[in-house]
């Protein structure tokens, strides 16, 4: 199971994310996002658009590496990996 940590900004819209360990069983980032949406309905649409593309100002890291495939989220996830869902600092 991969563990997922979130930018605290998301706690405002999904209070249930705060203060608990969140794990997903997923082989790719796309599967992880789908699983997160099952656990927290509506969350996926905050991270990706309706075509499954990562939103322009959202970043997902596997360990310390930014994912490569922002369009289809096909980057693979090792079991026990740590995922970080962050807002991109796109401005100043």
């Amino acid at each position, binding site marked *: 199971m991969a563990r997922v940590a979130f930018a605290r900004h998301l706690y405002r819209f999904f209070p249930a994310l705060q203060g608990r360990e969140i794990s997903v069983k997923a082989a790719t980032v796309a599967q992880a996002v789908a699983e997160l949406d099952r656990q927290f309905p509506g969350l996926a649409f905050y991270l990706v658009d309706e075509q499954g593309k990562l*939103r322009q100002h959202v970043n997902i890291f596997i360990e310390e590496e930014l994912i490569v495939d922002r369009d289809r989220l096909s980057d693979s996830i090792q079991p026990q990996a740590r995922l970080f869902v962050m807002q991109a600092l796109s401005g100043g």
Partner: protein
Amino acid sequence: MPARKPQRKPQKKSSRPKALSTGPSRLILGTRKGTIVLERGRTGWKAGQLAHGGVAVSYAARDERTGTWWAALEHGHWGPKLSRSADGEKWEDAPQIKYPEGTRYIDGYLNDDGSAAGVEAAMASAKPLRPKLVKAALKKIWYLGFGGADQPGRIYAGTMPGGVFVSDDNGESFELNMPLWNHSSRGGDLSEGECLGAKTFWFGGGAGVNGEHTPGIHSIFFDPRNSRRWFVALSCAGVLETSDDGKTWQGRNKGLLATFLPKPDVEWGHDPHYVMLSKNDPDHVWMQNHCGIFYSADGAQSWKMVSKEGRTAHFGFPVAADENDGKTAWVVPGVADDKRMAVGGALCVAQTQDGGKSWEELRKGLPQENAFDVVYRHALDIKGDALAFGSTTGNVYFSANRGKDWISLGYNFPPVYSVRFA
């Protein structure tokens, strides 16, 4: 014994004109920093608690039929979202608007090697156009409209990229209107293949909070005599009408002028900033266009420019049509498209009562120096004799007497995107 005449108490004279303290008593603002409800109490107008604090709200309104409040959010990071509230105070994410799988639109043209082709070169080439097809994803909910009394549950959402989503269950679900999405003016059905030769006449358009520019639909209104007949206006293409509740669409751009194009009287390519009809005189339709003010006395079948460059009333974004007298309308002028600011540093609302033949400038109560306010397309509203507007510099003004007198409801609001009586 004769009945004693009741003694009348001497009336205290109010220092405020009566006209300013009557009329509707609630407004909802969509602003750069959230949703604000303003209410008129015994001591004047007051702003309630801010909702969606820090989030841009492109449009907010209340559906009078159900009492539900709606706000279209533009999160900087998390994408556009629809929010709703039963009481204007506690808000929640509504079921979201999403483009169906397979919906694509043309975003430029490609050379055979896949590089971007200049539009002019692509159009001039003898080869069939190779469109660059982009999968549609919601960039902005720009407008929300509510259906007629005979259409309970009907809600319209105008979006970027240019779509109309229709709900018939009070917003529990929305469906993209496909006949408009697949209209010939934007290249027809683009759902499969390379669509060689497909060409769109929709271009440019409004900006999302993240700066995206795609054509977007900002005006949706129906004929109160027949709510199956409705209209949309978009930037940039023009106006379209359906008379069969969205099954087929016809352009309604006769008489419009796009002075930013080599041939201004084109069929498509117009930039209406906002379009509205007179509720009880619905053959009279008003448009504040990028290129001037246009008026139709025949239900948008033909348009006539009723403003002149160089005059105060010409450029701007919003327009409000009188509910009963279709020849009367109000605009909030700016200088010009290359100088989007109040005319002469003085804020005014211009009113016509003769179908645009003449315009009167209404200034009483509005700042007449050091004003830079621009009023966006959804930031002027009308209800009965009451008018209200909000500006990009965070000023909100109200008039209960058709614009003759104005009072400020606050000077330090965030940039205002929408103002609606609620």
